[in-house]
């Protein structure tokens, strides 16, 4: 949002580049990606000599590479790709490779403003993260999921800290081999498994879902397990906007799921499934995707259910910035839908992308697909169809939408007043 204030919200139409023509310059061109502000469109391109480069607004990066994949723009508009030269891998940022090279690199992540870029690395069969070109001092047997704080100062990762021989089943389950590393420093406590994790926004606390032995699941915070054990848990999240460390996770007991904060159930209701819990930005409301009965899916807010259920899937739960509204994607009888505050838009789609709220929460927009064509729907009303497009962004005043789209092979950056929907 703070970034988007600086963007051009006045030029209604800007032809940025014509990706369909790039095929004439290169042997092969892959699918395009666009920058958050819409000013750049880029694709991985292969030269006739077999080397790879990135083509940005029609211009190739100066450097070419043996291989290249995972082209991604960061929130600040810098373009990254995972590249290899002479059998070694690294990250290239706006065409310039990091100085450090590794045996392998993957899973790029950015912090909120894009100034911190992290990747997973493998070097000499040791695993860890590299952050802004600096590898962790300590590397591990393996690495699982990782997260970073919005300011990019803290990274927490599930890591295998203890080696394991072939078919060492008792060592694996009794002694454990996994733990959590924060900025490369591992917790002392070793677990059988560590999966999803979260950092508190200030980076002071880390919580992770763990298993001790084969049957006891719980959440470990800062290396200490909740005293309560469960039959299963899912990944925790921290409640924002509080100085307390409140790790919140779905827990399963006696065959039913509910939500617990620091080990204690917070909702009376129990569900066949409960996951993807999310707090409103101010931390006051807690919502989750739930299955109140087998094969029926909906959303619970502070334990109360939406009136509508969907028989296939609910996903991508999103609060409005003020926390008063909630949207999600649902799938029902094979059709994809956008649901806002429990009410689905009338139209059904072949695919939908995560809903986006306007800053005041009064409008919802989403990229949707029908019959191989894409459009943006705003409060359920479609804009015109395009060959390709990207998620909409509202202007800071909520009156316009940035539409990044490809029409007739040309990539346009458009500012569309909401009245045009």
């Amino acid at each position, binding site marked *: 949002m703070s970034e988007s204030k600086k963007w051009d919200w006045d030029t209604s139409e800007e032809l940025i580049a014509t990706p369909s023509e790039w095929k004439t310059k290169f042997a092969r061109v892959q699918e395009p990606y666009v920058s958050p502000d819409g000013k750049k469109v880029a694709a991985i391109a292969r030269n006739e000599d077999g080397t790879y480069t990135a083509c940005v607004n029609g211009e190739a990066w100066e450097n070419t590479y043996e291989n290249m994949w995972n082209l991604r723009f960061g929130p600040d508009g810098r373009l990254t790709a995972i590249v290899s030269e002479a059998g070694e891998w690294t990250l290239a940022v706006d065409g310039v490779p990091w100085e450090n090279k590794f045996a*392998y690199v993957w899973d790029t992540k950015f912090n909120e403003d894009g100034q911190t870029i992290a990747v997973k690395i493998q070097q000499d069969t040791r695993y860890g993260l590299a952050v802004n070109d600096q590898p962790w001092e300590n590397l591990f047997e393996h690495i699982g999921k990782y997260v970073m704080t919005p300011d990019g100062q803290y990274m927490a990762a599930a890591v295998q800290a203890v080696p394991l021989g072939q078919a060492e089943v008792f060592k694996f389950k009794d002694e454990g081999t996994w733990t959590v590393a924060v900025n490369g420093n591992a917790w002392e406590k070793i677990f059988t498994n560590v999966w999803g994790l979260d950092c508190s926004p200030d980076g002071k606390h880390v919580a992770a879902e763990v298993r001790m032995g084969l049957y006891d699941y719980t959440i470990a915070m800062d290396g200490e397990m909740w005293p309560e054990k469960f*039959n*299963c848990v899912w990944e925790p999240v921290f409640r924002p906007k509080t100085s307390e460390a409140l790790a919140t996770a779905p827990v399963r007991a006696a065959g039913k799921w509910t939500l617990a904060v620091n080990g204690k159930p917070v909702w009376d209701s129990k569900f066949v499934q409960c996951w993807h819990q999310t707090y409103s930005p101010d931390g006051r409301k807690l919502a989750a995707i739930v299955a109140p009965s*087998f094969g029926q899916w909906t959303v619970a807010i502070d334990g109360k259910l939406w009136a509508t259920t969907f028989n*296939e899937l609910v996903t991508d739960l999103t609060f409005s910035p003020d926390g008063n509204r909630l949207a999600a994607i649902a799938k029902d009888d094979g059709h994809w839908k956008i649901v806002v505050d429990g009410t689905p838009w009338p139209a059904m789609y072949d695919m939908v992308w995560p809903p986006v709220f306007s800053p005041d929460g009064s409008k919802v927009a989403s990229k949707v697909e029908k019959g191989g064509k894409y459009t943006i729907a705003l409060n359920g009303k479609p804009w015109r169809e395009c060959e390709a497009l990207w998620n909409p962004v509202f202007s800071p005043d909520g009156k316009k939408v940035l539409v990044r789209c490809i029409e007739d092979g040309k990539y346009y950056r458009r500012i569309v007043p909401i009245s045009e929907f």
Partner: protein
Amino acid sequence: MAVPATKLKEKKEIIDVGLEEGAARLTYERIEQVINRVITAEMAARMKVYVDTCIHCGLCSTACHYYLSHGTPEWAPVGKVKQTMWEILEKKGKVSPEFIKRASIIASTECNVCRRCSMYCPYGIDVAYIMATVRRICHLLGVTPQYIQDTAHSHSATMNQMWVKEDEWIDTLQWQEGEAQAEMPSLRIALDKEGADIMYSVIGPEPKFRAQLIYQAAILMTAAGVDWTMPASPGWDNSDMAMFTGDFEMMGRIKRTHFETAAKLRVKKIVMGECGHAFRSVYDVGNRWLGWKMPPIPVIHATQFYYELLKEGKIKIARKLKEPVTLHDPCNIVRGRGLHEMMRYLVNATCENFVEMYPNREQNHCCCAGGGVINCGPPWKTKRVESNSIKAEQLAATGVHICIAPCHNCHGGLEDIINTYKLNMHTMFFIDVLMKTMEIPDALKA
């Protein structure tokens, strides 16, 4: 191609550290407590109905390849239930550690949960479900064969079956892509391509031992002009040995990762490689444990996908295989999904001389590898092969040298049978057949 008489003379004791050490840690109290918890909190009402309804008629016996291969009552489906669940329920869980060890051996290595016997039972009693529940009890008691337990551990740590590390997975895809580009320059294995039509998923052994299958899938997808992707993160493996050890919590975690990976990539469907048990785990068991009645993103088994591509004319057959072939119907996609006629369409479209094996379709004998039995590893191999002499007879009677088997476990199991019984045959996946018979458009050739 006569089959040597290899009926198992006596049961040799097989030492498996997972079972021995697991059983050594048990106490009578713990056994009773765990069993009673499963009885009260987990067992479906149908278990009691099954146990109460069974009239001990033995009609299920001749359904089971173990019985047909050994010929004595303890190998009959009802015999296995008698030795395990009846005893457990009758004694209300007051059974010994030795009993649990034996129950684990029966449920994990003497039953493929293939569900053939339920078709023969006049009451439709699902012995596979009963054996799966025995495995669940054994899992909760920590008495599971070592190798399959190790596989379940791999799933838990890496979300794949073979301890394949994240970088090894991506590296393997890139390696196969590079190799395949020599044959088809425009080919690409697109990683994490959001919004592709299809996510292609495989099982752990493919990147580990059978990477050529990924190569072949990439050739097929490119020739058919399919918009497809593969995930660069865990979730790529659709297999699930936790389902077979009875670790349902882990099964759920694996399936969740798989489906959420597909949902995140915004694909319209998942196409999976030629694997049977994995199909069962995504289509029937694992999805349902999570609360999804059906897969939340549709999953198509490879054989159905090939069938659709052929029917729609997206791939064409340039030449048919001349050698006679037979077809093994995998339990999980035939009794479990009814894909047998589509497979026959595929065989007839690609092969000149198709010789059915008998029995076939949903009556086919199991390979004896599925249901996690082959995953119990080397200690159990001889017993597994000896327990399926009936399959060797069935294969030999076809008189052909090629057996198409669109399932990984079936492949492993059938190869072991073919070698042991010296059947002078080899197995092929449908994708192997397609690579030999499919038309590659000139524009795509190197």
